[in-house]
Each structure stands twice: as C-alpha cells, then as structure tokens.
C-alpha cells in the first residue's frame, strides 16, 4: 500500500483534532499498520496526553534544533504496537515561530519517513505553518463541531487554505501582481471567489485556468465531531455542499463522530480512548472514516498535486 500523510486540522480550538488524530493512529496501528503520529501543533502540543504519555525527550523541538539528526530519530516507541510518536516540544516560543528553512526541512523529512502512515496533528488557526502542513498532506481532514463559532472558523480555515494554494501557484508562475488583487477581492463576500475567477478568466484565461485547476486539486475532507443527533450529521453534509458551491472546492464529507462523555473521562484518567471503548459509536465512526480513506479507490484518485513551497 502506498504512503499516506494524514493531516488533521481545523479553524477552531477544542473541536477534537488531537482526539481524532490519536484515535485514528491507534486504530490504524491496531490493524498492524505502522503509524507515526506527529504533534505538529506548534503552539499548544498535547497529543502525548491523549495517548497517556508523559512529555520527555527526544521531541519535535530536538529535531528542529538539530539535537537529533532526523525525524525518524525523534519518533519514540509507545506502549502500543506499531505506533510511534513525535512529541510536541515544551520550547513553544521557539517552535511556534519556526524559520521557513526549518519548516521546509520538517516537511521534507515527513515525506521521507519510511512509515506507510504518518498522521499530523495540526494546531488551531490559519498561520502559514499550519496551512502548509495541511496542504502538503493527503488526506487532509478538517474537524469541526456543530457550533456557530466552529462553523465560522471552518469556513475561514478553508478560505485561508484556498488563498494559500492560489498564492503558491501565483509565486510558482511568477504572477505575483495577481496576489494583491486576490487579497482585495476575496475578503468581501461569499461570491468573491467566483468574482475573482470570473474577472481573471476575462483578463487572462490561461492563468485563470491554471489557478482554477489548482483550486480544484485542493480536496479536503470534513469531519463533524461531537455530534448529538441527526441534525448535526446533516449539518456536516450541508457544510460540504455549501463549500462546494461557494468556495468552489471539492470537499468530501466523511461523516460525524457522536458525542461521548467517556472521551472526557478517558482524558482525565490519562488513558487513550480507543482501546478502552472499541465498540462505542464514536470509535465505530472513526473506524469507518479511516477505512473509507485508506481503501477507497475514489480517494486514491483524489490525490492533490504536490505543492512546492517557494524557497524564502
């Protein structure tokens, strides 16, 4: 089976990105597939806590500072078979604002890891670091919850991803003058993306086509976490449909993870959720999603084009 880099991201904190990442990793590892979990939440790492592991060295910071030579060396064994973890660092001020060349090195090493499944747990927000990690992965999962704040931030995150993709292509094709035009137009309303492309197609059809193709190559998946009923499940479907129509992206709705109070209990007891609650609706939902992504032929065809980050 080919290598998969899974990225779990989203616009808002507390939606359950780390929960999804940890349990996805535990599920894949339980199927005898080698997994490396990377806590790429550079500002507030806590993936180790969800796995019931205490912070220790080596961690991501050690790799970034050069204390360990490669990312492979920073991936420590866990008590779970087939699952290794690159812990987030405590030296947050340094890592949260990593230099561009360090980010490129990290991205390169993530691609070079010999493990078939690499899962990136990303941080909140739309910083370039987070967006670049999300865009370099396949599949990219956007985790949201059925709250107005989470919905709003999810659309913002998707918009930021779209603008980052377009910016990277503009830089690559040296059409940087378009960037300011894009910034001016896209902020305004829901139709702004359409208007931008429409005017671009009228003035320069070839670049318009390139950028539109680039946009269509961005194919995130949506996960509705903490759902409390049928309406929340449908909300996820509606959001994916709205994103397809207004943000012009091919977004796939993976499904909903039901709310479970045992998640909180497991966290307090510093025990990972998945091994203890394999038959719970939430664990079943995670299994179903991972199987859909791991085996789906359709998804294999959804591979996004590789985005090359410009050297700063």
């Amino acid at each position, binding site marked *: 089976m080919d290598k998969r880099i899974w990225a779990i991201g989203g616009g808002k904190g507390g939606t359950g990105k780390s929960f999804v990442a940890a349990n996805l990793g535990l599920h894949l590892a339980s199927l005898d597939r080698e997994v490396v979990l990377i806590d790429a939440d550079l500002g507030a790492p806590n993936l180790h806590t969800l796995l019931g592991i205490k912070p220790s060295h080596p961690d991501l910071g050690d790799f970034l500072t050069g204390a360990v030579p490669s990312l492979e060396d920073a991936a420590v064994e866990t008590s779970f078979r087939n699952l290794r973890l690159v812990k987030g660092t405590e030296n947050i001020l340094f890592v949260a604002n990593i230099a561009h060349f360090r980010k490129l090195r990290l991205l390169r090493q993530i691609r070079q890891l010999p493990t078939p499944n690499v899962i990136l747990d990303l941080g909140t927000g739309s910083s370039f670091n987070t967006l670049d990690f999300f865009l370099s992965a396949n599949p990219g999962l956007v985790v949201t919850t*059925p709250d*107005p704040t989470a*919905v*709003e931030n999810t*659309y*913002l995150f998707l918009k930021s991803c779209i603008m980052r993709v377009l910016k990277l292509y503009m830089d690559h094709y040296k059409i940087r003058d378009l960037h300011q035009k894009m910034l001016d137009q896209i902020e305004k*309303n*829901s*139709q702004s993306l*359409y208007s931008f*492309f*429409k005017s671009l*197609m009228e003035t320069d059809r070839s670049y318009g086509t390139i950028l*539109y193709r680039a946009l269509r190559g961005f194919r995130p998946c949506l996960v509705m976490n903490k759902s409390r009923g049928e309406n929340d499940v*449908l*909300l996820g*479907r*509606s*959001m994916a*449909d*709205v994103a*397809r*129509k*207004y*943000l*012009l992206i091919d977004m796939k709705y993976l499904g909903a993870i039901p709310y479970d109070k045992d998640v909180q209990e497991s966290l307090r007891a510093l025990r990972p959720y998945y091994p203890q609650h394999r038959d719970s609706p939430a664990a079943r939902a995670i299994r179903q999603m991972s199987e859909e992504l791991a085996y789906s*032929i*359709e998804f294999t*065809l959804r591979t996004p084009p590789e985005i090359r980050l410009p050297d700063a």
Partner: protein
Amino acid sequence: MLKKIEDWNYYELLSVERTASQDEIWEGYQAALSTYKDGSLALYGLVSEAERGLILERLQEAFQTLRDPAKRKEYDLALLRHAPYFPPQAAFRKSVGKLEIEEAPARKSFWARLKRRFVKNP
C-alpha cells in the same frame, strides 16, 4: 466548470445527477431545504440572508420542474441544447448494464447481412 450561483442548473442546485430518480430528487430537495432554511448553521459566516432567499426561491422552482416528468423532459432538452451532457464515469465499471444489453437490437452477422442483400426471399 466555473459558475455563478444564478447559473447553477436545477440538478446542481439539488446536488443530484441528471439521471436522478424521483426519490433522489426528493432527497436532494429535502437536503437542500435543510441547508438553506432560515437560521441554518451551515451558512453561518459565509452566505448572506438575501442570497439565502434567492436560493430558496430557485430551489422551489427546481423541485416543481423536476418532479413533473413532462416539465423535466422539456427542461432537460433545453439544457442539452445549451451544452452537451456527459454522465459521470465510474472509476471502475461496477456492473454490466444488463438492461442496456437486453434492449439493444441483436447485431446481425456478416453472413446474415450478405444473405439479406442478395437473396430476395430468405
């Protein structure tokens, strides 16, 4: 295909294929109604109230047209005149279209065609 919301055809509006059955159209309509209903969370922070009203009107129009076979046929023909339609192709062929094969006229063999041409009353 880059399209403005006003340019979406009825099928795109309901997120169904052009070959959709009446049940699928009904389901698509219900899903779209729940997406664009008053106070819908799915539109929060992205779609304005005016746009929502516009889409709801078009949704009604779409459903009224597609649920009526005669109106739907007329609409389909108008769409085809506007642009040709290529149904989506499956990545792998899931099943052989049995119905299609049965309905297709049997192909005559070369000898049968030759015989028909030269023998007056076979």
